[in-house]
């Protein structure tokens, strides 16, 4: 029992990070139809910038704030310099551009930072909490709590605010969005900034547990993408549940089978789900009449 609980704790922690990456995918996908494969790089930048800002003597909260802000600016730059000039290109080309951007950001970070593995202290100390024979790190609670807070915030944004609806409207029909007075360029800028900031925040929260280096982004992007697909691309609820589910699957496989198989098991289950539910767990079939 305590063993199972232990696996669930670690699965939830990793899953919360996947959920944050998947939420980042969801925002940009909702605004533009583009799957942004540089999403994992945002997580890496969040961690790495915090590490170096903290090492230069800044207090941790300020370093984290700077990391989130700088990463959001990188997201905006990605949109302005790489996505917007190619507007009108097929979505597949835009996706390839984001893959290129992710390689570029990884390479640049290698030069700007270094190739070492880094970390910074946990927010609330290193003493774990004991629950029913299992232990959970206080930092894990930060990660899980952060993911829940961001999910609720996004859900409110998309369903309750006019600006959130404007983002959905822009992705559904850019022409019509302009005609009702929505500045679609601003919506795109906003989406990239928001998505990058959320990724960076994920990086800040998780670095004390998983450590970070210039190349952690790729694996996170793949897992986050899988989580978003599992939940149903474009649906924040799907991204959140998909992320947690993927984390749990991995942790349970690693615990009860072998950690060698954890990636394989996760992907096999995702394939099985998508085989029977191609829209993902929460995806809606689109029914348009013309």
């Amino acid at each position, binding site marked *: 029992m305590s063993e199972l609980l232990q696996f669930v704790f670690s699965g939830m922690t990793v899953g919360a990070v996947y959920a944050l990456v998947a939420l980042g995918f969801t925002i940009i996908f909702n605004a533009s139809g583009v799957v942004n494969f540089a999403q994992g790089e945002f997580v890496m930048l969040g961690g790495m910038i915090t590490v170096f800002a903290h090492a230069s003597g800044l207090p941790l909260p300020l370093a984290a704030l700077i990391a989130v802000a700088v990463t959001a600016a990188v997201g905006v730059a990605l949109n302005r310099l790489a996505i917007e000039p190619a507007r009108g290109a097929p979505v597949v080309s835009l996706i390839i551009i984001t893959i290129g951007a992710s390689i570029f950001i990884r390479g640049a970070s290698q030069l700007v930072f270094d190739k070492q593995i880094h970390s910074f202290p946990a927010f609330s100390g290193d003493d774990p909490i004991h629950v029913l024979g299992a232990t959970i790190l206080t930092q894990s609670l930060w990660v899980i709590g952060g993911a829940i807070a961001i999910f609720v915030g996004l859900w409110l944004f998309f369903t309750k605010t006019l600006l959130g609806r*404007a983002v*959905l409207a822009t992705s*559904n029909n850019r*022409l019509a969005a*302009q005609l009702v007075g*929505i500045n679609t360029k601003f919506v795109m800028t906003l989406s990239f900034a928001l998505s990058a900031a959320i990724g960076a925040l994920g990086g800040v929260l998780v670095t004390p547990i998983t450590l970070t280096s210039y190349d952690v982004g790729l694996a996170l992007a793949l897992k986050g993408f899988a989580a978003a697909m599992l939940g149903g691309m474009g649906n924040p609820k799907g991204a959140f549940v998909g992320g947690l589910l993927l984390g749990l699957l991995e942790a349970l496989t690693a615990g009860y089978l072998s950690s060698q198989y954890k990636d394989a098991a996760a992907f096999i289950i995702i394939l099985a789900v998508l085989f029977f539910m191609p829209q993902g767990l929460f995806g*809606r079939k689109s*029914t*348009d*009449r013309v």
Partner: protein
Amino acid sequence: MLTVEGLRSRYGRIEVLHGIDLHVDSGEIVTVVGANGAGKTTLLRCLSGVQPVSSGTITFRGEAMTTVPAHRRLARGLAQSPEGRQIFTNLSVEENLRLGAFLYSDERVGKDMEDAFQMFPILREKRNLAAGGLSGGQQQMLAMARALMGRPSCLLLDEPSMGLAPIIVAQIFDVVKSLKALGVTVLLVEQNAFGALKIADRGYVMETGQITMQGPAAELIADPRIREAYLGI
């Protein structure tokens, strides 16, 4: 209210509007009729700012509009119900209407939505359904209602009768006629020349990117050349 002078526009190297001159006075219903491919939709796209203008000017209520970005034109009072309806298919009918009033968040939004439901009662019935599931006629009604939510002084209507059953077309044209009483000026682009000229005050005939005839709608309807070319009589 709306004046267009020497308007030219091109798709790549191919010019499709070769110097259009037209004007719409306040309170009028003006129609531009013409065959498929004459450039009517391109003209409206230029007016709403989603199609680049290569030369010429657009003046609206005394202000130069030619270079105003598309998303700023509704705030100046110019709304468009575009060709093919272009509703937000995965949002609900009510959300579509709410987004029509994206620029506003005062109590008049609720009142305007009530007016829209009065104008098209079927939309009230379907208010919580995804707009993509509406029939063609209902989508057209939604597109017009959404445009009116933006409180326009002038409404650009692109082919509202396209692909619809005659009884729905009659209903839509009745609504267009009734906009006059609401103080909304209308520029109506139609292939259905007869239906459009019947409700319009004045008309323009467009052929291959040029205005070839113009005059009071009643005169155009009686003109033998038009009767032959567009009315099939």
